[in-house]
């Protein structure tokens, strides 16, 4: 089965961040650690599909999204388990909503805890909007 070109593009952009001291510092500053899994996805994939892939790996997991192959615009957020209090306060996210919508919500909230309906686990998504600035240099 072919890999979608937009996923290859997101992978390419992530590698570009890891190629420079500034990009590595940016990721480390946002909690990225060696060994941490990176899931690349398309902007319009459902939360359910992406979270199924996320949960195959030990948290925290970084999700990297690209909208299209012509833009050097990488959107990232980290998914990590939420504590009990956060779980109670978590916003419900429809599993059929897109992961792109979740990113937008995380970006606006600066750190958005959500729970996908029909799933027991909650996760906190923290967006890394500054990645755009680094990649646009």
């Amino acid at each position, binding site marked *: 089965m072919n*890999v979608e070109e937009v*996923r*290859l593009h997101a*992978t*390419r952009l992530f*590698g570009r961040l*890891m190629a420079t*001291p500034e990009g590595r510092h940016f990721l480390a500053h946002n909690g990225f650690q060696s060994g941490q899994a990176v899931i690349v996805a398309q902007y319009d994939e459902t939360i359910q599909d992406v979270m199924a892939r996320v949960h195959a790996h030990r948290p925290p997991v970084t999700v990297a999204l690209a909208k299209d192959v012509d833009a050097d615009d990488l959107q990232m957020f980290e998914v990590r388990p939420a504590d009990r209090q956060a779980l109670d306060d978590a916003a419900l996210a429809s599993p059929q909503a897109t992961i792109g919508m979740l990113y937008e919500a995380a970006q606006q909230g600066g750190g958005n805890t959500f729970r996908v309906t029909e799933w027991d686990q909650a996760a906190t998504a923290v967006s890394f909007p500054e990645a755009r600035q680094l990649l646009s240099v």
Partner: protein
Amino acid sequence: MGRNRKTGKKPVNMSPTPQPALYRPPDEHLCEVVNYPVFLGDGHSLHVHQRLYRNFIVWFAIMQRFENAAGIHDVARIDCCHGMLHRHVFDRQGVDLMDQQPIATLYSGSESWATVDSHFTPMYDRMLSEYMANHRRWCQ
């Protein structure tokens, strides 16, 4: 050494020409080691190992892997082991179809860290541009 008495010619220099030493990265324990697996879905993944020293990538390996019901398989690899930037492309039996295809020889020197660092992005992009071709070759 003197000249040949009969011909008056200088003797031929038979001593071996010194070759520049091949590149060796700083010891691993002196470096920051960064590994990251990137999962592209449907069993496809890219695994990157970087050794960082003084803000340079002084050693790296980029591996393409594929996971199916039979296990996890190496599909391709670009690395800079043994003073040589080279590429491997594997078949299902794990045989290197390229026999460590050389891309560039790396020599020791004052610029060697910067040289290795400068190879990272082109090699990473190359791996991605050849990604599906590598996979198709592995599937054959």
